[in-house]
């Protein structure tokens, strides 16, 4: 039984992209449920894993894991083919913020038995995973340190999947395929040269240079990969991992390899709206065979093939006068009215397309109503939207449940439900910011054949990783998330340490590890440690706060001394006191006493205190007027004068 289990190929699927490239559609729903050509991404992944010889899958979900669970449960009820041979485990952790965190969780849970396949939920492929993993094992036999084999698909440089992604530059040993250098370039990057270290070039008789590889987001991993993530807190994603390994090859005793997919194997990753569109069409064009619309891999095949890559569900209703030019997919119970013209478009279920509507290169989900005379190009319209008459949408992403009023003209906008009533004017700002940037970049590309394709989508580029517009929709929180979590963790650690009377050395270690986990700067650490000490729960409940504060300071003296050493850290500390006194009710009006306690404990020195006090006055801080503080500084001045006199 044991031996059998060891032979089962394991795969880890990371269910999140950890970026906002597919916003706003994927802000509420997990990326795995985003339909590509009518089928959720997760179904492609699971189906391809089964076909590729994988027996056990760990789905790691950070965003909305319940929805993923429900989906898998439903698949099992429906007896979808993969459920018979695939053992699916769903893990979730709401705290993971990066792929690195996920790997560390996996390491901690010890779920991976040996060699495994690591892929993102956004990968669509028909490769034979088991064979690839065997290939990686062969490499590991030759090189014990081989940690990961990256899987790439070779395409021409002018392929749209390359020009719309960060392009990869790879230098590798020509004989062993060991990666020597790895770089990514932004699309339309202006760098004209690539530089390679001379030493490594001379050291290898043949160095392969690749700049035309498509990252498939598939990696074949050795058992050493999760521990490597655990050992290196700064590895946040796969690129960090690759760079970290290449730079510290000797220290980490690990190396990376790559492999190119052969001939007819297809693999690509949905990374943004442009690649989403390209891959959707690839699926319609049957590149991903056997994962295709008509092969029946997906549920019961009820599509009718109409020629020119047009597919319609049998229950859909098409008017006699509508035209489907090419690459059109229409879901069940969808109605297309008279004179509508569709091309390179995917429409979900129960939607209604009005008369004289022209739709090009767009994705329309379920229950969408598009009224008469609309013109929609290169857009994504999520479920339950209503587009009123005579609207012209170009490169627009519309979140679910939104309504677009009559005669609206939109270009390159992102619309979410709550924003619907905003006027055009308000929206156009975000468009211009991100749109122009892309237009600049797209100019000067000289390849005729793909331009039509590309141009269409260039206009909609604003929806591609448009940070500016995405951020604007976020609520403005007072403190960035990471630091807040960090503060809470430090408070927790200290409270526990205080209750259980733990050694301060351990607490320092704990604080430091939290620090690295959340990427906190040193001066912030100083600030938040003091802030945490003054926010301990014991203080809140205490009847005599000052006595407790004294005890706390006494207990945590080693911690304080560890962090508060230099002038600048003392100022951090004082600022934290100021902040705490303002924010924490229980310390109200006690700033002077607290400072006094710190002064007595030799944590802060006179000069810094005076400098800080001057700062407070010039900044007109609220606590500068506090009586306790004023008293304290009077006392301090007197004391220093006395000491001077005595000298």
């Amino acid at each position, binding site marked *: 039984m044991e031996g059998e289990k060891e032979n089962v190929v394991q795969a880890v699927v990371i269910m999140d992209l950890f970026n906002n490239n597919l916003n706003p559609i994927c802000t509420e729903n997990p990326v795995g449920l985003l339909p590509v050509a009518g089928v959720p991404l997760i179904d492609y992944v699971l189906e391809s894993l089964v076909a590729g010889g994988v027996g056990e899958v760990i789905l790691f979900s950070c965003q909305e894991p319940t929805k993923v669970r429900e989906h898998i449960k439903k698949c099992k009820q429906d007896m979808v083919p993969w459920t018979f041979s695939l053992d699916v485990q769903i893990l979730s952790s709401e705290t993971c913020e990066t792929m690195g965190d996920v790997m560390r969780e996996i390491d901690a849970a010890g779920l991976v038995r040996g060699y495994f396949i690591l892929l993102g939920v956004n990968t669509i492929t028909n490769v034979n995973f088991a064979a690839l993993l065997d290939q990686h094992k062969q490499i590991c036999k030759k090189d014990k340190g081989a940690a990961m084999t990256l899987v790439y698909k070779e395409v021409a440089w002018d392929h749209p999947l390359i020009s719309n992604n960060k392009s990869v530059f790879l230098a590798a040993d020509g004989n062993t395929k060991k990666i020597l250098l790895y770089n990514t370039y932004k699309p339309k990057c202006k760098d*004209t040269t690539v530089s390679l270290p001379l030493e490594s070039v001379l050291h290898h008789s043949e160095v392969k240079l690749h700049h035309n590889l498509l990252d498939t987001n598939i990696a074949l991993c050795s058992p050493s990969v999760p521990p490597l993530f655990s050992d290196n807190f700064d590895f946040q994603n796969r690129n960090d991992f690759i760079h970290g390994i290449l730079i510290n090859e000797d220290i980490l005793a690990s190396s990376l390899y790559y492999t190119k997919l052969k001939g007819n194997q297809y693999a690509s990753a949905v990374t943004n709206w442009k690649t989403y569109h390209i891959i959707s069409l690839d699926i319609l064009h049957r590149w991903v065979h056997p994962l295709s619309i008509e092969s029946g891999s997906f549920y019961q095949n009820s599509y009718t093939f109409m020629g020119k890559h047009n597919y319609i569900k049998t229950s859909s209703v098409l008017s006699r006068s509508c035209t489907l030019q090419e690459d059109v997919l229409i879901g069940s119970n969808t109605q297309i009215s008279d004179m509508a013209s569709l091309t390179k478009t995917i429409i979900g279920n129960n939607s209604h397309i009005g008369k004289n509507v022209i739709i090009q290169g767009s994705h329309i989900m379920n229950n969408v109503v598009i009224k008469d005379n609309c013109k929609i190009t290169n857009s994504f319209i999520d479920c339950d939207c209503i587009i009123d008459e005579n609207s012209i949408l170009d490169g627009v992403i519309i979140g679910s449940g939104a309504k677009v009023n009559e005669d609206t003209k939109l270009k390159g906008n992102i619309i979410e439900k709550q924003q619907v009533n905003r006027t055009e004017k308000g929206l156009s700002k975000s468009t211009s910011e991100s749109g122009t940037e892309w237009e600049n970049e797209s100019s000067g590309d000289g390849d005729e054949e793909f331009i039509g394709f590309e141009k269409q989508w260039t206009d909609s580029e604003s929806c591609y990783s448009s940070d500016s517009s995405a951020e604007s929709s976020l609520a403005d929180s007072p403190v960035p998330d990471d630091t807040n979590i960090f503060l809470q963790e430090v408070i927790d650690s200290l409270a526990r340490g205080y209750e259980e009377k733990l050694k301060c050395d351990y607490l320092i270690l704990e604080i430091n590890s939290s620090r690295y986990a959340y990427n906190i700067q040193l001066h912030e650490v100083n600030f938040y440690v003091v802030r945490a000490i003054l926010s301990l729960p014991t203080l809140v409940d205490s009847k005599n706060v000052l006595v407790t504060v004294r005890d706390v300071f006494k207990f945590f003296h080693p911690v304080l001394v560890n962090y508060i050493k230099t002038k600048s850290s003392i100022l951090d500390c004082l600022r934290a006191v100021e902040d705490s006194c303002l924010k924490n009710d229980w310390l109200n009006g006690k700033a002077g006493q607290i400072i006094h306690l710190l002064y007595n404990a030799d944590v802060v020195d006179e000069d810094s205190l005076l400098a800080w006090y001057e700062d407070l006055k010039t900044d007109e801080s609220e606590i500068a007027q506090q009586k306790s503080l004023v008293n304290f500084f009077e006392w301090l001045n007197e004391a220093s004068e006395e000491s001077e006199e005595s000298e």
Partner: protein
Amino acid sequence: MHKILEFQAVVLAAGRGSRLPDVGGTVSKCLLPVGAYPLLWYSLNMLERVGFQETMVLVLDEDKSSILSALEKCPLKIKYELIVIPAEEDWGTANSLKHISSRVTTDLVVVSGDLISNINLNDVLNLYRKHDAVLASLFFNNGPEEWIELPGIKTKAKPDRDLVCIDKDTERLCFLASASDFEENVKIPRLLLKKFNSISMFSRLLDAHVYVIKHWVINYLVDMDKFTSLKGELIPHLIKKQLAKPKKLLEKKGTSERNVDVNKDIFDYAVESGYETQIRQMSAYNDHKLGNKGVYGGDIIRCYAHIPPKNTFGIRVNTLSAYYLSNNKILTKWEEITGLPLYDKIHPNSDVKTKQIDEISTVGDKSIVSEKTSIKETFIGSNCTIENKVRLTNCILMNNVTIKEGCVLQDCIIYTGATVDTNCSLQYCLVGPHHLVPTTTKGNHQLLAEITDNMITLG
């Protein structure tokens, strides 16, 4: 035998052997004996094997007579015309080519006079023909250089290496530079990587210095008048120009009226005479699989590189180690390389009295080897005299060398006309031409020659 009019051949044999150690006196590189014949003979033989009936040979003025007399003794059918380069001028290879430009009427095969190889040159010519190339070159992939302990003073200087980028799918040569041109990082245009799909950068290839070049390149070379070296300047220039596109007609017209000559660029020379472009457009052939570009990516200038299989023998005798190696190996591969039956190792006119001579050693014309000598793995040229009680191991003796009684020589190279007096014991030594090594000299890793001032400081 039909006459090949497609190509003219030129052998560059005016090299001074600057990479060989200075042993005092003059030694012309192309006359260094390798096996039974001078070095130059091997390149001529290689041309002859693929059917060339005549070739030009560029030689230094001072060497002309000695080369003529040396080649007369060798079996050659190919007609060779020696063209003299004035000795006082320090010309580069490109200058030399310019010198003969008036005689060049067809595409040109440039062969270096120091090449010994068993390659079938047709492979390179066919690559050139197949793609209608501007340049086809030849690189040997011999693997790491064999390490041998060399005679003479030990040096730490490392041989300079070429960095060569070749697109494996199309055999296009897309980058050529010397490793010494770079300090820490090698910079390569990204455009190259975008254009070619499977570029490999080689750092251990041996450039055979066999170039097949289009006729117009010679005209370009003459008109531009800025190149001195073929390998160092002209070839990299051509390779770089592969990425360039000709200027638009309109742009050029404005300037060309004023001064035609100054504004002539390489694309004014690279004009196709017939219907090549149209044929290429109508053909379904494409040289690469991926992407949507037409054949050759629309490039007008195309450079190619041929890498023969690993077991091909190829060596350029331009360093001491290469010379030493070539002499070690030439006999074992004699028939492959020359296409001739192996000659008698011990020349019929020689007089070998000793029995202690192994099978690998050779003795040249009119040489005398006395009794009670032991000779192992040693090459002895013509007119040499080896006296009694001499032991030679792994040595090269050029012509007219005298080794007197009781000498023990191991791993030495004795240049033409030198004499080693009685009871010397030398290991890893170089003996310069016409030098007399005094009696009972003992040496290890030394240069024994008519030492110039220069040499004293070095030694």
